[in-house]
C-alpha cells in the first residue's frame, strides 16, 4: 500500500468522533470539574475552557488528556491574592472530589481510590490570572521553576498549532511518541515539528515524517524551541534536556531503519490496532502454546 494512503488510515483510526463514547466521557468529566470549580469560586466566574489537543485539533484516540483552564480576571482576588494562592486554592477545591497531583503549572486529577495505583483521569487543570482586562495574556504559577510567574497566552498557542497546516503530521508523531514511549512533552514536540516542517515545503505525510525523524537523528543537539506566546520570557530549553535529545535521536534512528527494512506498518502497526478485543479463543491459543513451552509462574518478592 502507498505510504500516504496507509498513514491516512492510521489517522482515521485515531480520530475520535464528537459522538464517540470517549468524547462523551470527556465532556461529562469536564462538566463535573466545571461544576465543582464554579461552586467553589462562585464570586469569580473563572474562564474554564478546553486547552490542549482538544482545542488544537491534534487529539489521538490512543492517548489523550483533558486540559482545562481555570483563569481568573485580573482584578479578581477572591480566588487568592497571589498566583500561588490561586494555584493552591484551586488545588484545595479539586481535592474535595479528587486526589490531585501537582505539576509545574497544572493540577492533575487522579481517582480517590488509594488502592488503585496510577488511577488517572488524564485531566489537567491549569489555574491562572489574566494579565489585564483584555483577557488574552495570562500569568501562571510555576511550582517547580526558579521563576515563580510564567506569562503565556492560550489563544496564541492554539492558533500556532491549529493553523500551522501540520496538525495531521503532529497527530502521527504524537502517536509515534506514544508507541515508543519517547519522553518529550507534547508542547515541545509540536513546536519542534512546526519549526522543522516550516523550513521545507513537503506535502506528503510520509515525506514530512521522514524529514522530521532525519532532523531528530542528525541534528538532535541543534534543536531549539521558543514559546510563540512569550519567545523571550519563557525559556523552554529546560524541557529539551540531553536526555530528551538522546531519546529523539535513538527512536528516530531506529524508526528510519525499521521503515527501511520492514516498511511503515512496522512503525504504526495495523491502522485499527486495539479496536478488536482479544477473543477468548485467541487468548486460549496463545496461552496453550506457551504452557507447552514451560512458561514460568509469576511471583512477588
Amino acid at each position, binding site marked *: 500500500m502507498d505510504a500516504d494512503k496507509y498513514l491516512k488510515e492510521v489517522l482515521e483510526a485515531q480520530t475520535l468522533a464528537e459522538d464517540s463514547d470517549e468524547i462523551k466521557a470527556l465532556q461529562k468529566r469536564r462538566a463535573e470539574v466545571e461544576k465543582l470549580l464554579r461552586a467553589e469560586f462562585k464570586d469569580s466566574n473563572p474562564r474554564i475552557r478546553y486547552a490542549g489537543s482538544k482545542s488544537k485539533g491534534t487529539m489521538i484516540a490512543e492517548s489523550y488528556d483533558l486540559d482545562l483552564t481555570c483563569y481568573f480576571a485580573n482584578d479578581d482576588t477572591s480566588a487568592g491574592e497571589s498566583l500561588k494562592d490561586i494555584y493552591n486554592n484551586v488545588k484545595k477545591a479539586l481535592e474535595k472530589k479528587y486526589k490531585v497531583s501537582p505539576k509545574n503549572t497544572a493540577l492533575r486529577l487522579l481517582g480517590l481510590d488509594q488502592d488503585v495505583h496510577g488511577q488517572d483521569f488524564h485531566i489537567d487543570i491549569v489555574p491562572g490570572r489574566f494579565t489585564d482586562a483584555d483577557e488574552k495574556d495570562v500569568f501562571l504559577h510555576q511550582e517547580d521553576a526558579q521563576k515563580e510567574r510564567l506569562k503565556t497566552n492560550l489563544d496564541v498557542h492554539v492558533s500556532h498549532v491549529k493553523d500551522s497546516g501540520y496538525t495531521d503530521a503532529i497527530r502521527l508523531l504524537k502517536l509515534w511518541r506514544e*508507541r515508543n*514511549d519517547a519522553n518529550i512533552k507534547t508542547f515541545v514536540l509540536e513546536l519542534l515539528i512546526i519549526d522543522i516542517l516550516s523550513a521545507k515545503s513537503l506535502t506528503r505525510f510520509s515525506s514530512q515524517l521522514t524529514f522530521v525523524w532525519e532532523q531528530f537523528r542528525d541534528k538532535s543537539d541543534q534543536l531549539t524551541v521558543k514559546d510563540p506566546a512569550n519567545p523571550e520570557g519563557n525559556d523552554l530549553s529546560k524541557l529539551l534536556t540531553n536526555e530528551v535529545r538522546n531519546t529523539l535521536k535513538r527512536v528516530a534512528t531506529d*524508526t528510519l531503519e*525499521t521503515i527501511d527494512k520492514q516498511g511503515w506498518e512496522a*512503525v504504526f502497526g495495523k491502522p485499527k*490496532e486495539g479496536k478488536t478485543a482479544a477473543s477468548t479463543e485467541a487468548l486460549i491459543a496463545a496461552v496453550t502454546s506457551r504452557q507447552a513451552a514451560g512458561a*514460568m*509462574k509469576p*511471583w512477588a*518478592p
Partner: protein
Amino acid sequence: MGTPWNKANPGLLKQIREDLIEHYPTLHAYEEGAGIVVRGTFPIELPDVGTAERFHITIVLPPGYPKVIPTVFETKGRIPWKPDRHMGEHGAACLFVPEEYRLKYPAGQRFLEFLQGSVRDYFLAQLVFERDNVWPFGQRPHGVDGRHEFFKELLGLPESRLVHSYLSCLAIKDLKGHIFCPCGSGKRIRECHWNEVQLLRARVPRRLAQEGLDTRQVAPARPPASVGSSGKVL
C-alpha cells in the same frame, strides 16, 4: 566492578538493537549509567487479533548481564502495583522466581528470547487475569514461600517442610553417608535416600541450592533514575 557487558561486548548490544528493530520496533536500547535500559511499548500479539494490547515498559540490563537477570518495569501504571498482581512497589514486574530462571537459563538468555518468552508470558498472563481472574500459567506464593514451592516441585518433594533439609544436603560440597537423611526418617542417608539425593545433586547446581537456603527477603527492584517514583518515564 568489572567492565559493563555493553563495553566489553559491543557486538551484543548491536545484536540486541538489530533484534529489536526486526521484532520489537517500538522498543529501544539506551545507554544509561553503567548499563543498558530498553524502553518503549511491548505489544501482545494474538492470532487473528493482531496487537491486542501494548504495555509501556522499561527493562534494565545491568552491568552483569546476561548472567544477572534483567529487571522489567511497567511504567504507565497500567497494572496496579500490588503483590497480588505480581507487581513490586516500584512497578517492578515479578516475572518468575529468580532461581527458576537461573536453573532454566544458567548462562542467561538471548534478549530476544527473554522478550518472546518470559516477558510475553507475564503480560499475556496479566491480560488473562484481568479478563477471567485466573493466572493461566499458575502463580507462586509471595516471598520465601514461593521460592520454596519452586524447590519443592523441582526436587519432587511431598512437603514444603522438607525443602530446607534437602537443599542443605545439595549445598554440601562433599556429601558423607553418615549424615541424617533429609527425608526426616532419622536414618543415615547412606541407608535411606542416598541414591535419590545423588541424582538430585547431579541435576541441581550446588550454588542454586545455596541460594535457595538464603531465606532473606529479596528487596523489591528499584527503577532506573529515568523512571520517576510514580513509574512514569521522566
